[in-house]
Each structure stands twice: as C-alpha cells, then as structure tokens.
C-alpha cells in the first residue's frame, strides 16, 4: 500500500489513460480519416462530419475512462436490463430503416439498442461470472447462456443477423475466459459445426441473407447483383498490388465502381491505394490494439475487469477480422464497418466506450 502511495503519478495516470493504447487508437483514427478522404472523393463535408464524430467519441472515451471498474461492475446488471427493455421497445415502436427496425427515437436523438448491447452484454456476463468457480458449473453456464440468448434473439428479430452474432460472440468470449470446461467447449464446437448451419439455413436466415452466403461461396455467378460488391472489392484490393496506387489514386473508388466505399468496403479503397504492404501495416495496427487490450486484461487484478477487458478486446478483433474477411472475400457479406475507419458514428461511439472501459481498467488497477 505504501508503495502505491509513493508511486509517482504521471499525467496519463491523472487523466486515467493508457498512453500506448491511446497512441495506437489515434494513429488508427488518423489513418481512417486519410482513407475516408480518398474514398469520399475528397469531400470536405464528409471529413468535417467524421472528425466531429471522432472528437465526440474520444471525448466519451475520456469520460468513460474516469469511471472506476468497480462502479461499472455495480451498474452492469442495470445496463443490461435497460438494454433489453430498449430492444423490446425497438421491436414494438422502432424506426424502420432499410427494412430493419434498429433505431429508437428518444426525443431529439436516435439510439440503436443493439449497439448498446455490444457493451451491455459483456458487462452483464462478466458481472454474473466474476465470482463463479473455475471451471464453470453447468448451471452457471446455462444461466450465462440464457443471458446471451435473450438479447441475441431480440436483435435477430430486428432483423440484424450480423450484430446478433457479434453480440453473442462477445458474451461467449466471457464464458470462455471465465473457465468453461474444455468438455463443454468441445461439445459446443461440435454441435455448432454439425447442427448450426442446418438450423440457420432452414429456420433462421432470411432470403437476402441466404443470397449473401450463396454469393459468398461463388461471387462470380451474380456479377451485377449481390456478387457485385465482393467482386469489385476484390478487384480493388487485387489491383493494388504490393505497394498500391498511392493515396487518392484508387480508380475503383474514384470512378464509383466500388459500392459502399466509405462505409463497409472502405478497406478495399485502402488496399488499392496502399497495397499489400499498407494492408499488413494496417492489420498490425489493429493487432497491436487487441494485444494491448488483452495485456491490460491479464495485468488487471480483478476477475470482472479481466473478463470485461478480455471480451471487449477479443470482440474488437472479431470486428476488424469479419470486416476485412468480408471485403477480401473469405467471409460472407455482413454489414459490419471497419472499426474507427468506416464512415459512420454509431459503432465509433460504442467502440470508444469500450476502449474507455479498458482504459479505466488499466488505470484503476493501481489504485486498488
């Protein structure tokens, strides 16, 4: 205790920030702005909006970082319950946009409850499992699974399969980290491999989702329809070569061949302009951020903190992995943006909240 009191507090300790993680997040955001400038056709309007969003999101990050993990643990179940209520509301009274009910109008601003759940669910599971023994008992596991399935099903019915899966995975990460017996994992994986595709295909997936999967398996069959996105993005990335065409020189994007180039398919623009070398550097940037998150999780001194930081970091990996995997054609097209790079504010705010939490977990461990 004495040692802690004598510990010299730096500036970053005072504002409760992990400088390493922050540095890489800022670099990533800067790279993102640069690519977006090119992808948007050098639209200053887009730049101003995205910069405003980034400033707003990072402000939230700083604010969230000030909240002690203990307090986060305390409010976890309530955050989750509010999330569930909002999900139910959105199904009843939500705004319909692009054929799906995802938004909730709360007076002057719109809220996407499924985004809320991306954080609320890992919090809730971490809260539930932080005092449970290792390995998990069956009953604990089943309760945790229930906590996961409830929001997943609600999100799925919006319908938003992509987010439902991502939210589910973030919960499963916590269960895994909490010490789910390898037996369970084995059975789970087996079940997943054997039964899930069948159930998904026949009972769960909508026609457009099936088209996406079929297109993913063979994109060239439908060059101008659903396969067009993926075909054009592969052309963009492939034509980038080893070193790329250079910044602002993407023809696939500049001449509008690439659809969704500022949002979900922005990595294709990056790949075309900066080539294989640039892509590796960007991927490493993401990997470093994940690594730092996991490092913080390991170094933290509280199971709730570990579970939450671990789950959030691993989910971050899934975000960029799924997005890039989709853009380069090894995963089906799901509407997941490239974190901190794609144009759009909702996911950015969610991400910054989760990184704010990781920062807080990092900073408060010393104060324990």
């Amino acid at each position: 205790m004495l040692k802690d009191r004598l510990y010299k507090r730096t500036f970053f300790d005072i504002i409760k920030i992990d400088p390493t993680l922050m540095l890489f997040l800022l670099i990533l955001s800067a790279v993102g702005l640069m690519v977006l400038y090119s992808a948007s056709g050098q639209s200053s309007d887009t730049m101003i909006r995205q910069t405003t969003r980034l400033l707003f999101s990072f402000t939230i990050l700083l604010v969230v970082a000030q909240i002690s993990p203990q307090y986060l643990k305390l409010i976890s179940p309530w955050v989750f319950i509010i999330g569930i209520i909002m999900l139910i509301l959105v199904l009843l009274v939500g705004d319909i946009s692009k054929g799906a009910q995802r938004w909730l109008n709360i007076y002057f601003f719109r809220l996407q409850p499924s985004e809320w759940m991306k954080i609320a669910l890992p919090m809730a599971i971490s809260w539930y499992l932080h005092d449970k023994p290792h390995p998990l008992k069956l009953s604990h596991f089943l309760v945790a699974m229930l906590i996961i399935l409830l929001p997943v099903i609600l999100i799925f019915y919006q319908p938003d399969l992509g987010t439902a899966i991502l939210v589910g995975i973030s919960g499963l990460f916590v269960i895994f980290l909490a010490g789910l017996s390898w037996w369970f994992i084995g059975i789970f994986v087996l079940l997943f491999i054997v039964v899930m595709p069948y159930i998904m295909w026949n009972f769960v997936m909508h026609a457009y989702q099936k088209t996406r999967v079929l297109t993913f398996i063979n994109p060239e069959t439908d060059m101008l329809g659903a396969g067009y996105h993926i075909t054009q993005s592969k052309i963009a990335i492939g034509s980038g070569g080893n070193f790329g065409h250079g910044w602002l020189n993407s023809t696939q994007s500049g001449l509008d061949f690439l659809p969704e180039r500022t949002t979900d398919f922005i990595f294709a623009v990056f790949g075309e302009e900066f080539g294989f070398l640039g892509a590796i550097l960007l991927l490493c940037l993401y990997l470093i951020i994940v690594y730092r998150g996991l490092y913080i999780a390991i170094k933290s001194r509280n199971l709730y903190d570990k579970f939450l930081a671990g789950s959030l970091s691993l989910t971050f990996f899934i975000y960029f992995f799924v997005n890039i995997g989709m853009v380069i054609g090894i995963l089906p097209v799901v509407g997941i943006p490239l974190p901190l790079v794609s144009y759009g504010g909702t996911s950015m705010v969610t991400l910054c909240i989760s990184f704010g939490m990781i920062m807080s977990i990092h900073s408060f461990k010393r104060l324990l």
Partner: protein
Amino acid sequence: MPNKEYITNRTKRYEQFANRIFTIGLIFLLLFLALIVRLFFLQNINFNHYHKLSENNRIKTVPTAPIRGLIFDRNHIPLAQNIPTFELLITPNKVKNMSFLLQRIKKIISINNSEIKNFKKKMTKKKPFEKVVLKDKLTDKDIAIILANKIFLPAIEIKAKLNRYYPLQKIAVHALGYIGRINKQEAKKIDNKIYKGSTHIGKIGVEKEYEKILRGYPGSKQVEVNVDGKELRTLKEVRPTPGFAMTLTIDTRLQQVAEQAFLEHEHAGSAIVMDITNGEILTIVSAPDFNPNLFVNGISSDDFDKINKDSKRPLYNRSILGKYPPGSTIKPFVSLAGLELGIINKEKKINCHGAYQLQNDKHRYRDWKKSGHGWTNVEKSIVESCDVFYYDLGFHMGVNRMSDYLSLFGFGKKTGFDNKYELSGILPTRAWKRKNRNKKWYLGETLIMGIGQGYMSATSMQITKAVATLASFGKVVTPHLLKYYTDHKGIRHKYQDPNKNTSLPINNIDNWKLIHKSMKNVVHSPTGTARRIGYNTSYLIAGKTGTSQVYSIAQDGKYDAKKVAYELRDHALFIAFVPADNPKIAVTVIIEHGGSGSSTAAPIAKKIIEKYFELRY
C-alpha cells in the same frame, strides 16, 4: 473431472485466465495470418489478373468514325459534302419519369408520334447508360429553346454530328448515288474493324463503288469511364484516317443542261457525254431522277412511296441498266463491218424499193420509207438510214461475222464503267440463241439485226463507248467517273484505264473516214435524217438517228404513235461525236418511248453539244 476442488486461490485463477487468453490469442493469430495469406494471394500472386479487371472496368475503347471523303465534279463544284446537324439525345437511365419528360419536351419543340415511337423502340435495345436519339436535324430555334430550358430537362443532351449532304440535290443522282444507314444484310458482310463507329455506308452509284476510298479508316479513343459509363477523360487517341476526296469527271454545267432538257419534256431516258480521248464521262443522265438527300438518314415511307410508285421508275439507273435495241444507230457499225470485212465497198449499190424479200419467204422486210430510197450506197444508207441496204448487207455477212465485228466495239460486253452493276446487253449469235432460247437461228433474224432490232440490245453506256471507239478510229477507252482521288497525304491518284493502248484492227482507214463523213452528212446534208439540228452551227456534228421498236406491228399494219400506248411507243435514239472532223466527245441520247430519234433525241443531243462548245475547255 480433473479439478473437483474449486480454485479459490486468486493467483491460480489469474493464471488460468492468462492461459485462456493465450489459447484464444493463438487462434486469433492464425486467423490473422489467414487474412495476410489471402491478401498476399490477391495482391501479389493474382495482381495481374485483378489489375486487368480493374483496367477493364475503367478503360473503354471507343471507336471514332472517320469523316467521309468529299466528292467534287471536275471543276471542284462539291457534289457530296458533310454538314453538321444537331440531334437531341436522352440517357434513359438517368430519367425517373420518362413520359413526363417527353411531355415536357413536346411542349417546347415539335416532335411527332413516329419520332416518339422510334425512340421507344430504340430504348428497349440500348445498353445501360447509352444515349438514345429522340429527334435529329434540330433547327436553330429548337436548339435555342432546348438550351434555355435545359435545367428543367435532366438527362438530355444536344450533340452535333456530320451528315452527308448532296448540295445539288437531284443533279447526277444516279451517277453519284447516296449513302444510307447500314442495314442488317450489310452489317453481316462488312468488316467490323473498318466500320467500328460508323453508321452509314454507300448504297448505290459512286458512293458505293468507291466506298473503300471514301469511307476512311476509324480511329479509337481510350477513355476512362466511371461506373455509369460516363467518359471522364481521354487516355490515348488514335485519330481516324479520313476518307479520300474524290474528283469526278462530271461537268456539272453540262450535266445540268442535259437534265434540264429531259425535264422540259418530262422524258424518261438516258444521256451520256464522254470524252473519247480518255473515257471521262462528262455527263450522265438517267431521267427521271430523285433527291438523294431523302435517303441519307432513312427515307420516310411517304417519300419512298412517292418515288417507288412513279410508273417511270426514278430509282432505275437507265444509263447502265436500261437495255435498248440500238435500232438504226447500229448502222454505221454494220457498214464498217461490211467495208472492213470486204463484203461491200464504198461503190456498192443496191436498189431500194421500200422492202426486201428473201427467196422462198413471203415475209416483206419493210423499209421505214415506204417508197424506198432508190439506188443506195453505203454513205446514202447511213445518211438516209435505208433499211433495205442493211437487210442485204446482213444477208451477205451472216450473223456470226456481224456479231464478231460488233463485239470489237464492246457490244454484248460490260464496258468496264466504274459501276459494277452495269449490264452487258445482248449481242446475239447462233450459239447464243441455241443456249438462251433453245431454238435455231433464222435468217430473218440476221436481217433485222442489221438494223439493230430483234434480240440485240445495248445499254446507253455501251453505245457511247462504241461511238467513241468509232470516232477515235479504233482507240478503245474505258468510260469512267473517277478523275482522281486525293489521299490524306494530299497525293493525287489518277484513274488508271485498264484498256490503255488497246486499239481495234484497221484494214483501211478510208473505210472509217467514209463512215465519219456519212455520219456528218446525217446532220449536215439536206437529205440527212437529223438535218434539222444541223442548220447554222459553227461546228460539225457527226450523228446517227435511231428508232427502236418496242412492239412489233402487224405485217401490213400502220404505226401511229398517237394511237399506241406510251409503254409500247418506239424508243428514240441519237448518237453523235463532235467535232465531226476532229472528234473530242461522244454523245448518246435515248428517250424511252420518245418516238423517232430525229424528232426527240437529236434536239436534246443538240442542246448538250451546244453547251459543250459554249464551255469548250
């Protein structure tokens, strides 16, 4: 169950957590490597493939059509030009409500229903983002109105293009021909490499015959396009090679006089004036005529009906497709045959009583002059056009000898005129009749062949060539319209005569001179059949009239032009070369159903010849 005791030890628990992180970290590292490997495949190994696809996406090669060569007459008067016209284009993909837009356009400029119908038809066949023509040949007023309203009319565009135009309208239309849109049959035959970007092709006349010279060679433009197919910038351009300018042998001034002469009497027929020294066609008329400009962008069905239903068939090129019995115009050639083959000499006389009879044949071969011409020698037979003289000469010469000699002058053969559709006429022989009519040759048919009747037929062009050969003492030239063409480097390519330096065998030049003299006397002697055109001329004309029967009258019947239907009336012919003593040009005039050669054909020839001497280059 490996671990029944709950682990409470905190450090142990942290270790287990760390292990889990390492495990999943390892799995993620593998996933991460999968991304890298995939990227390596896309960007390194398959780079060329995707690079090509990307270039295919953005770079389109657009053909640029060459400008068609101009056509001039021998005095550089333009006969075929390219003039800019403006057309209204719509990009249907950019239009949300097409019928609304069409209504709007209709309100400001006049558009008829057939234009809208055509537009809708084309719209169904177009490629995405292709522009479709709504109206062409916009007037200046239309353009001004459209431009002023442009902001209310999205997705419309006014584009200039070059249109073929024949400034002299109907003048020399059959010789010149016209171009029109490439039709389905032509599209199958043409070389797509050469016609890339072209929409028109020569259909008839010089425009078709010299298509290769006139059309030029297309260029290409590599343009960068966006996803809508919009051209953003030109990356590379190969300019098209323009078509070569052509100068024809036609003299428009002479041509106009000739056409006017036909027009005055509403004659149908043909007239050709040829330079006998080199075969240049100074004038070539086929009457009636039509306006080629109607055909360039597709003739309307009304206009076409008007032309097509005309019983005189204006589209029919009589100069090379009309086969006429030469009638008495053949007589100078038959006489020359008789003289050169030694069958007769210039003193040989026969007594003409107005008819000729063969032994054991009741048929009377009548002369046009019932009372007969009395004692007639070669010269008189030509001047007065005595038929009996030629019945007798034909009798002694026989059909095959006559045919052989006439074929030296090009009868029965194509002239080599630069329109490959010309017909070769018929120069009958015994073998010809057996083959084509499956009958033996009758002696009577030899007799009437001597006066250019029966099976024999020739085109106006063939007759002209024969007259030229006769006038130039056997020198053979090929009639042609191309004087020279000027290529894109400015080099002139003159017409090359395939018959250069060919001449007919001459036994005795005096025989030829006799024929020349006789033909001069046709016009310039008091008994000549064409004496009416011979008065008061400062120059000498050598000519020969001809009247060819279309319909045989009964043995003792009487031909009365007024009573016979137009289609059955005789054709009137006149051949001439001037000046008689030093021939420069050959003239042929054929008036379909014109009656006698002396009364209708000769006066027209006179007008042409008069104009020729007036111009006298």
